[in-house]
């Protein structure tokens, strides 16, 4: 158990995200989970405005200076029911915008502060990979196709990995995923039989595993050159995107969510811990 007397806040849309349990296991301090930004009040001061930045949550005020840290795993701003679609969208954008400023300025440890590629713009995985390629990082190849083309390929028995550009849902073409012939999709060059490499980047260090059709391989054979190559590219990309903690895998790059589901349990088997708040020298 790590010594930490100040409260910690995790911003994550999932109630069951394993990161909260892991932090509660690692730290003595209370860990608060904020799943929807609209559930908390927020105040941020700019330009010499007097007063404190703070958030109001669960009938308490939290000031960044008195927090042990804020871990941002995913920011969801969801308006309560009862508003018109236009009002809901406005409310959600206004809340999100205020939180971006709060997290940018917060005078405490914040893992995954808002940046161009992290949490703020909603950069899709296809766009992240395009950015990676533009700076020379090798990624899987992909091409954009219409839904009509995918339906033809499905009928012909083709099987490729696809991403819905609108929803970002990844699926195999041979499955039952509904395809809209008007939509555009990204098609990636990943064979259905390929293993999925999952890498967790935590504070400048990487841990990984391979998810195969048979289960999870903890990658104890860590000398594999492909793993080292992937680690090097992933660290480069994490630094480029200014993401402190994230997970890389074939279809996606996402801040922290799922980091502990596979990797952390395997790390514990190797008698060590991954501390999601250990982000020294990171963002």
């Amino acid at each position, binding site marked *: 158990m790590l010594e930490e007397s100040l409260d910690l806040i995790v911003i994550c849309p999932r109630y069951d995200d394993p990161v909260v349990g892991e932090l509660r296991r690692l730290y003595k301090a209370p860990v608060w989970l904020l799943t929807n930004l609209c559930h908390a009040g927020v105040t941020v001061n700019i*330009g010499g405005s007097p007063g404190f930045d703070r958030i109001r949550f669960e009938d308490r005020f939290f000031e960044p200076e008195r927090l042990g840290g804020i871990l941002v795993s995913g920011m969801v701003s969801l308006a309560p029911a009862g508003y018109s679609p236009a009002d809901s969208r406005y409310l959600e954008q206004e809340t999100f*915008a*205020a939180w971006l400023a709060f997290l940018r300025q917060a005078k405490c440890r914040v893992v995954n502060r808002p940046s*161009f590629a992290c949490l703020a713009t909603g950069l899709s995985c296809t766009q992240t990979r395009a950015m990676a390629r533009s700076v020379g990082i090798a990624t899987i190849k992909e091409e*954009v196709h219409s839904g009509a083309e995918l339906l033809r390929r499905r009928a012909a028995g083709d099987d490729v990995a696809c991403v819905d550009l*609108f929803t970002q849902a990844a699926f195999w073409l041979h499955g039952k995923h509904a395809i809209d012939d008007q939509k*555009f999709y*990204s098609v990636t060059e990943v064979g259905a039989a390929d293993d999925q490499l999952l890498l967790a980047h935590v504070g400048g260090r990487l841990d990984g595993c391979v998810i195969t059709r048979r289960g999870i391989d903890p990658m104890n054979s860590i000398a594999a050159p492909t793993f080292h190559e992937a680690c090097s590219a992933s660290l480069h990309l994490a630094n480029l995107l200014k993401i402190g903690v994230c997970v890389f895998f074939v279809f996606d790059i996402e801040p922290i969510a799922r980091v502990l589901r596979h990797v952390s349990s395997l790390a514990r088997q190797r008698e060590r811990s991954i501390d999601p708040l250990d982000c020294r020298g990171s963002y």
Partner: protein
Amino acid sequence: MKSNGLIIGHIRDSTIAHVRTVAWRLGADVPFVDVGEYVTTGSITDATSSNAVLTVSGHDYPLGGVSCIYQRASIEPDAPPWSQSRLLALETALLSSGSEVINRPLTGWQNMSKPLQMLMLESCGFVVPSSRATSVPEDYQDFRTYMGDIIYKSNSGQRSIVDRVSTGHDQRAELLSHCPALFQQRIVGNDIRVHVVHEEIFAVKIQSDAVDYRYYKSRGSFAKLQAEPLLPSAIGKKCIEFAAASGVALAGFDFKVDDEGCWYCLEMNPAPAFESYDHVMNGAIARRIVAKLAGYEHVAG
């Protein structure tokens, strides 16, 4: 003037129309892709590479290897999913294009949050007004009591009408707990709009009796725009540096200048609708963009 540049935008967008008109007057033959037509009937090849090709109405438009692309291909939030997926493909192609793009999608992203952008402007040496973004009613009351005369506006990139806070607003402060707003000390003085195109500066002064001069017709009586040749060099330099650091080739900075000559920077718009300011600049901003599209450093006015 022959050009291998490209303009991508909505055919009814008045800024796009202005740039195309100036290009036509200069005799610059700049191809145009209507985003509406691309979305309904077009396709895209190699969208994730630096050499994507748009195909619209039987014509191919390479996005790689052209002198410059000027784009305003915004995504409407109400558009159907299939339409948005096609715009996302175009956005991806413009992100990865090997050509210069004015402006590449998502650059200047901090404009989606005015308070966040003000923090960044302040850290680059701009003076910003004392401001508070809040959804906590008592924090609003505290700011109001301390600052006195304040204005309110939206936090996000959503356009809102800026206005003074009144006692009527004070009585509705509890509603803030439903949705935050941005409050700011009221700066009395002229507005200055500064456009940056690469390293060139174009400034316009706006005199108006309305708090938000854009809405002078309903909330004031006049708004007079005129070219402002006396932009302090330090301000111009900061604008160029901030735009460059944000990866933005074309930017619109909003300033308020008080009676003591203090320049308060309000925001930087990375997708400025600049035609109304350009009319008092005799089209200088559009000419600079057309020159880039044509692959020249400058074109005569």
